[in-house]
């Protein structure tokens, strides 16, 4: 009987050493990803979402950034404790990753076909010819027209959307169980973005893999993710099924993120803004990291850190005032 969990991250802390001090950019997060699930991770720049993704494959830039504590259990193996040599068998084979910038994530000196073939030859032990044939099939699978011609082309000959498709083809080449997509559509135009999201979703279904989709944009995740985690200042502040999160956000930060999305047909002339800025992780005060920006803030929010609470089935939030937030219809401080 296979476990229903694919990946579970327990108490992960990522430390950054610099300027004589150590800060925790990811500060004790826990989450689980099941099999064949699409999980979203949302948060603003610098909240630690990319570091979370990189630490799963231990790709953190050494030596300044390191995993300080926690376990990353993938199919029963703790990746955080695995020697580098054994970890390589997971990278690209069972866990693959897509990066934000398709412009710079492909090596300009090799053709697209060669780059797909490289990981096939490495992990699957295919011969040069077999790998070349498979890479054409893969290009076809990511819906690139005329794949045998495109396989011979170099990255600079392709558009941004096509390069991202090539990246996806490389990522799925060894049929990974988990695909981590770090802002896969941020650098693309909106129409291409929709196509890529749809492609990722259909590949996830057909290849029976799980997807961890990282984005700063809730609207993007609304389309693709079944479950969404909201990250703020190195912590996961809310996690729920996607429909539930959009209907009943329980953390003020989530409410704010939803409020500042532009909506078609809305009569408001200005979008609401979450005032203030993310606290510097170096001089974080006790209490809730969001307290300074929170319209629901109470005395105790500044004194002690709220615990994670289970509000409903699969809906977890880290806020004392979650009930008030749930009751509030919209962001209370409209400009």
């Amino acid at each position: 009987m296979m476990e229903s969990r694919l990946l579970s991250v327990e108490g992960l802390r990522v430390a950054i050493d610099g300027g004589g001090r150590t800060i925790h950019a990811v500060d004790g997060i826990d989450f689980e990803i099941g099999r064949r699930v699409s999980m979203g991770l949302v948060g603003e720049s610098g909240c630690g979402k990319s570091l979370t993704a990189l630490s799963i494959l231990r790709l953190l830039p050494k030596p300044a950034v390191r995993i300080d504590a926690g376990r990353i259990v993938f199919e029963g193996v703790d990746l955080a404790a695995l020697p580098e040599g054994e970890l390589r068998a997971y990278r690209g084979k069972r866990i693959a990753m897509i990066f934000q910038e398709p412009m710079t994530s492909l090596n300009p000196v090799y053709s697209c076909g060669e780059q797909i073939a490289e990981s096939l030859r490495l992990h699957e032990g295919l011969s040069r010819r077999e790998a070349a044939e498979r890479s054409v099939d893969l290009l076809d699978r990511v819906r690139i027209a005329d794949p045998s011609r495109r396989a011979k082309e170099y990255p600079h000959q392709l558009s941004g959307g096509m390069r991202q498709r090539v990246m996806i083809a490389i990522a799925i080449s060894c049929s990974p169980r988990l695909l981590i997509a770090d802002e896969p559509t941020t650098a693309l135009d909106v129409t291409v973005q929709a196509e890529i999201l749809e492609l990722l979703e259909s590949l996830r279904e057909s290849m029976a893999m799980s997807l961890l989709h990282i984005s700063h944009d809730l609207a993007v995740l609304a389309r693709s993710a079944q479950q969404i985690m909201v990250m703020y200042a190195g912590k996961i502040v809310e996690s729920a099924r996607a429909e539930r999160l959009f209907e009943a956000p329980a953390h003020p930060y989530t409410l704010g993120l939803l409020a500042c999305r532009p909506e078609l047909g809305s009569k408001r002339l200005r979008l609401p803004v979450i005032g203030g800025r993310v606290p510097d992780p170096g001089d974080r005060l006790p209490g809730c990291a969001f307290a300074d920006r929170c319209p629901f803030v109470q005395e105790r929010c500044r004194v002690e850190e709220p615990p994670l609470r289970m509000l409903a089935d699969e809906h977890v939030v880290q806020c004392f005032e979650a009930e008030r937030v749930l009751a509030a219809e919209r962001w209370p401080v409209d400009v």
Partner: protein
Amino acid sequence: MSYFALCFVALAPPLLLFLRPEGALYWLDGSLGWSASLSSYAALLWPLVILFLNRRHFPRRAWRALRDGAARTGLVLVILLHCVALFAPLLETHPPAALGDSITERFQAPSSEHWMGTDLLGRDLFSRVIEGSRVSLTIGVLTVAVHLLLGVFVGGVAGYAGGRLDGLLMRFTDLLLAFPRIFLLLAIVALFQPSSWMIILVLGATGWMGVARVMRGEVLRIRGMEWIEAARALGIPRWRILLRHILPMAASILVAQAALRIGNVILTESFLSFLGLGVTDPDVSWGMLIRGGRAAMLGAWWVSTFPGLAILLTVVAYNLLGDGLRDAYDPKLAAEGGGA
């Protein structure tokens, strides 16, 4: 198209050799033997190595470099010089080691019989200068190959590993750089039996530090690029990333470095040979020929002058080529639309 043209240039000499087998025999029989045949192989391999390392963007970049008249002159001269070395037996008017009559044929001025005159022992200087090109170019090319091997290894490992190993390797490099090279050379050469192979080893082992520094800088630059991170995310082993993903990107700068270095190494070799610590008989090098004219410099000026001019020509040719390549690979110049 240009790729094939260059391949042809590189492959033409051995093809011609098949057409003139008697030339090949003469050459293998000559006193220089294997050292000379290695020179020709080095001459042949050199453009092939460049082409291989840079096969992706060679044609465009190279032609941009060669649009510059000076660089093109350099390339043509370099190819010519290597052809001279390769076909030395066919070009020599006299056997280079044949002694002339010690009374009537010593120190003869240039004439139609002896185009560059004769030396102390009545040997034909023209033939000896041609013969000398083999040893001098072989030493130049092979020494720089040693520089590249050591420098790329040390610099590549230091840049890619980072941390303590980087510090250790680069401080070692600094240490060697700080050591006065000439004394080191003289000490080593004085300790061992001088020979062409010894010179290549010694010059190679004492001159790679600049390559290591350049290579380390390049690796640090390229290592930060996203496709390297993407390659790591695919589980590609580190040595493979270094060899397949970083080295080809650094190759362009290394090629320019190599071309500039060859001229320099030939100068150093001449200097050692001039002091009598380098190439020895029966091998012939240009520095050694200059030494042969030292005693009679005022009376028989030609004995030192012609080999000197050969050195000058070679060094200038390699420097022109190297400068042109370096400019072509300089991203700042490239941004201005390829320059002149």
